[in-house]
């Protein structure tokens, strides 16, 4: 998560404290010309912070799901959901923060490796159930999925080996359907 975003916000005087929370907002939006632009533009125009934004198709081909991780106090988050609901192309807005949900991120990490460090890196990959998706004499590229914390953790473990390049998706999330006893 970029640390600088709070500084960019017009709400910069709002310190990231217990009032400011991170919310995962799931949006179903009709696949219409300019719809994504409208959503992204709303966040920019109102000065709301986005930590990540992902979008992809759903089971209904006329609708996409957008998952936005946004930060703010209760009032800002309430305004965000209201403003989203106001957009004509948006079918549904759910703040998953109030629900039980599963969420995943995916990261591709290209890390420097030598014959000496390669086994150690692969061991880390194994612990995180990451896959090696590319290899060269001087690099290894790993693919890892999991919660934000897990993805943060593997990145932290790989850092000492020098990360050459990295591509990370934002969060995708779905509400949990059934809460059975464990």
């Amino acid at each position, binding site marked *: 998560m970029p640390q600088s975003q709070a500084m960019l916000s017009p709400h910069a005087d709002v310190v990231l404290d217990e009032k400011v929370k991170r919310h995962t907002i799931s949006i179903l939006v009709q696949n219409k*010309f*300019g719809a994504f632009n409208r959503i992204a*533009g709303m966040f920019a125009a109102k000065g709301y912070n986005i930590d990540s934004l992902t979008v992809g198709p759903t089971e209904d081909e006329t609708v996409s799901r957008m998952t936005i991780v946004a930060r703010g106090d209760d009032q800002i988050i309430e305004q965000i959901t*209201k403003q989203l*609901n*106001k957009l*004509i*192309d948006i079918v*549904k807005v759910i703040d998953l923060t109030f629900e039980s949900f599963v969420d995943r991120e995916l990261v591709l990490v290209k890390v420097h490796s030598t014959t000496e460090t390669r086994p150690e890196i692969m061991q880390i990959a194994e612990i995180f159930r990451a896959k090696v998706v590319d290899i060269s004499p001087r690099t290894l590229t790993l693919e890892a999925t999991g919660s934000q914390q897990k993805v943060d953790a593997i990145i932290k473990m790989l850092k000492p080996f020098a990360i050459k390049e990295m591509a990370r998706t934002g969060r995708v999330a779905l509400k949990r359907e059934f809460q059975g006893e464990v």
Partner: protein
Amino acid sequence: MARHAHAEEGSHGGTGRLMTGAEIFVRSLVAEKVEVLFGYPGGATIGVYDALRDISDITHVLTRHEQGATHAAEGYAKATGKPGVVLATSGPGATNTVTGIADAFMDSIPLVVFTGQVPLRLIGNDAFQEADIVGITRPITKHNYLVRDVRELARTIKEAFYIATSGRPGPVLVDLPKDVMAQKTHFDYPESVALRSYAPVLEGNSRQIRKAAELINSARRPVLYVGGGTILSNGAEELTALARKLRCPVTTTLHGLGAFPENDPLAMGMLGMHGTWYSNMAVNFCDVLIAVGARFDDRVTGNVDAFAAEAKKIHIDVDPAAISKNVKVDVPIVGDVKRVLTALAELVSPIDTADWLRTIDAWKEEHPLRYRNGDEIRAQYVMQKLGEITGGDAIVVTDVGQHQMWAAQFFNFTHPRTHITSGGLGTMGFSLPAAMGAVFGRRDLPVVSISGDGGFQMNSQEMATIVQHKLPVKIFVINNGFLGMVRQWQELFWRRRYSQVALANPDFVRLAEAYGCPGTRVTRTGDVESAIRSAMAHTGGPCFVEFVVAAEDNVYPMIPAGQTVNEMIDTPDPASETEQANGSIETVHKGKARKVSTHAAVPGNA
């Protein structure tokens, strides 16, 4: 772009021959009962303009600038409640509509703006007169469209009108590529709209309405804070009935003026930065604030933390996003104002507000609206006299600045849709074209355009349109030689360091005459009344009056931006010697019957 030979076979209920997009466009407007279209032709709309020639049901008004067209459409919409419709060409034609669209967006005015666009294959090509108007207007429209196929055209137009006029109204833009308008298909105008993701809530939640009623019934010092949403929902009558039933004092926002008659004893006039002293005091000390179709704008609230801090707040608004946006409220009710007020009225009983009203009356006596009158004309006097002479039976279209506030304070509005102004965006240059649009919608009342010398020059080109159509607009320019409101701020808050606020003006009367409009200049207070009377009696077209007024007068009361009633500046003490030397003190009390001018009132224009 797909050719659609198949569209010819696939006639699904479409009637008759194939039509071009341009023909479908004009027929769709007829189906929407559009009476007047404000526009300006160009290369990208030439086909549409050709099709317009064959339709006699629609009057096309050729404005002299596309900004004038959008403001005219706004004036028409505000005066009638019907959507205003604009047609501009691509590129600069489209970008010229932007200010009017932004204005309509801020003030929730239903507009449908059609813009020409370069052919689909050229979009993105930096083609001649190309602008991404859909991208440009995305944040200032309620919704917008680029029509990519002629078969989508009729349905898109239907949706555009529906979205513009329903829920919280607003502007909708439809971009029309030139080749799409030349394509042919069957015309089949949809009868209804089904939008999967748009369904404004109109009926208020009955539990919330009950809660509001309980709160109101327990109030001792209630205040109704009434905004433009009340007029937009045609709920002025219900509002007035509720206020009288409750015996609840009423203050209105700038856009709420006219929703409640200001000669009713319960009226307190406008609140906020330049509101009356007593309405701001009443809001400060009330125990229940009933916000009706208002949005807690910063010009109303000042410092939001101190705004009606002691009061429980009820907020009725059709837009859920307007609720608790600026000020947290206790009982929100999402719904159409008219419907909610009707339901609410049945659940409330009269409140014993006698003490409360006495307190307010004492404030009214102590701190009326007032100004110093003398030989030099005061703009306040012009507004007051206009109110007296017309008896409130006029549509007053103001611009932005000092004269706008003085009109709001001194005219004494008594009917909904008689006050039209640019509130949210504060667009100088609004009045003249908006008044022109209002005339096309309303011939039952005289229409008066009031601008300052600065704002008038921002759209004065529409004088030509007004003269061409012989529109009976009474055009008043309040000339103080300054950008008065900015000058006032520089005087009060910037140590009187005037920066770029003095105007070197043309001879306005000769300018009006050059356009073919009779003009008069008034320079003495004694001539104001007769000048207004002859303007109101003028027939056969527009007339122009320039009032040369005091150069450095200020609008009071004033709560400086972001502050509270504790910082409210009242009119400087009229009892001080220097002030007395300047002439008599005129005072205006809201909530009293209008002073009637000595001569019999002139009936509205012919």
